[in-house]
């Protein structure tokens, strides 16, 4: 399970820390172990321009968040959601799903996690936070637009 790639990301996480500005933030928790992540997303039009995060968690969840930033920053929302789906399928695939390195890059290192069901949630924690934050950016934008037409003063994210 502990591929060298995972340990590398764990020891030197990419994109760690919470940064401003951001469009939406998500807080996720793993109820079985109490691990937490706070993750922020900044969009530039349709492109993910930054992902920043703070985690309290194991090597798997930290490395996974690090790989996530590598894979989604600079991509369109649509593309990043495609990566997310591929990662999730692999992680929940119980070792039966062959991962595509072209799509998942360093993410393929997590294929082994799929054989440890109790750790799948760790690998997915950051991804769930990312998904949630993206949904929130959409909501905030909608809300902002709706608000804007009515009362610009209240339109704070």
């Amino acid at each position, binding site marked *: 399970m502990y591929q060298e790639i995972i340990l590398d990301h764990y020891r030197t996480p990419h994109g760690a820390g919470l940064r401003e500005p951001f469009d939406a933030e998500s807080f996720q928790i793993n109820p*079985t172990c109490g691990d937490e992540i706070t993750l922020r997303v900044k969009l530039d039009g349709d492109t993910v321009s930054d992902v920043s995060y703070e985690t309290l968690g194991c090597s798997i969840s930290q490395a996974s968040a690090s790989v996530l930033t590598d894979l989604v920053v600079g991509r369109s929302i649509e593309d990043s959601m495609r990566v997310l789906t591929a990662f999730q399928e692999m992680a929940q695939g119980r070792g039966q799903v062959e991962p595509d390195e072209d799509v998942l890059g360093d993410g393929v290192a997590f294929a082994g996690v799929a054989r440890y069901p109790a750790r799948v949630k760790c690998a997915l924690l950051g991804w769930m936070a990312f998904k949630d934050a993206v949904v929130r950016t959409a909501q905030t934008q909608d809300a902002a637009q709706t608000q804007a037409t009515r009362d610009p003063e209240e339109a704070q994210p």
Partner: protein
Amino acid sequence: MTTIEGLDVQKVRADFPILTRTVREGRPLVYLDSGATSQRPRQVLDAERAFLEQHNAAVHRGAHQLAEEATDAYESARARIAAFIGAGPGEVVFTKNATEGINLVAYAMSNSSIRTGLGPESERFALGPGDEIVITELEHHANLVPWQELCRRTGATLRWYSITDEGRVDLDSIELTERTKVVAFAHQSNVLGTILPVAELVRRARAVGALVLLDACQSVPHMPVDLGELDVDFAVFSGHKMLGPSGVGVLYGRAELLAAMPPFLTGGSMIELVRMEHTTYSAPPQRFEAGVPMTSQAVGLGAAVEYINDIGIDVIHAHEIALVRQAVDGLAAVPGVRIIGPQDLTDRGGAVAFVVDGVHAHDVGQVLDDRGVAVRVGHHCAWPLHRRFGVAATVRASFHVYNTPDEVAALVEGVQAAREFFGVVS
């Protein structure tokens, strides 16, 4: 007696170790009390033991290999049971028995009725004075008393459909109203054998926006039941009546309803985030499974479903109906025997209750017991129904896949013997 195609009863009987024992000084056991609890085949006992000898651990809690295997076994059992009743795995909540399942819904409703700290999604489960819960007069105490208590707690009113002399629900006896919040009824009466008109009762409940709870204790073990197709909101049944372990039952709830319903039992494994000041809850089905669950029993119930599937639930049903036919005809031919419940086999399943003129049910049961025939006597947890028929107690024979025509014949002979013994032979 017709032989049911594809069923070798002797082969089936060989799977049930208890059926080879004798009672009362050497008489072969004739077990006609499966309506109270069924017996377990070797396959179910073996599955539970194999789990305990190889994979036992706390589920949904550990990260070690045993814990993973145990969680897997537990969740696979849930998926298999869900498929058996036409439900999604997320719609199957494990309870200790059917009784807990009904109480779960009733308490979730009274919990919803205390609105402090709850979201708007639980509002549809809230009750108050003027609201009504509707059941029928033939219900098992398990589908009566929890509703009486819910009414006591919320001020709602309990109403019920009465029962005709033939043992059918009198659909004209009451009308549902806009204040009817729940309609709860048995799929099959555990005394009369009557199968209730589910579709019609669901239609009426839907027309007034009431929730429907089906007590499937006497149907799921004996005939094909697709809860999705029946379109009920909740349903309950017990493992021990379907060749599975005691200590495990199922509450089925439509996914959307379980998602909106507040919890009942609280504690470990059903939480999302716990602080001393406040707790949030996980998604169903976990939200309704507090504490370490009946793990090996769920696995055993999964094995029971597999056993039933291997024989075929329709084959089991046909076999039982043939036994009911024989029992009803045989008993009705004994002078002084009155069958309580439909003699007509339309919409009727496998429980045959009766009284013998001049011989109390307890005495009939005793004579039968002395001959090795195990039946149930009393009110079978349906006291109001017995009062409705003007009897304190009945004798009830009930069947499962392992019963034979010879056993039914032994029942009829035993009843005749009881009449002779108590000198009421005409």
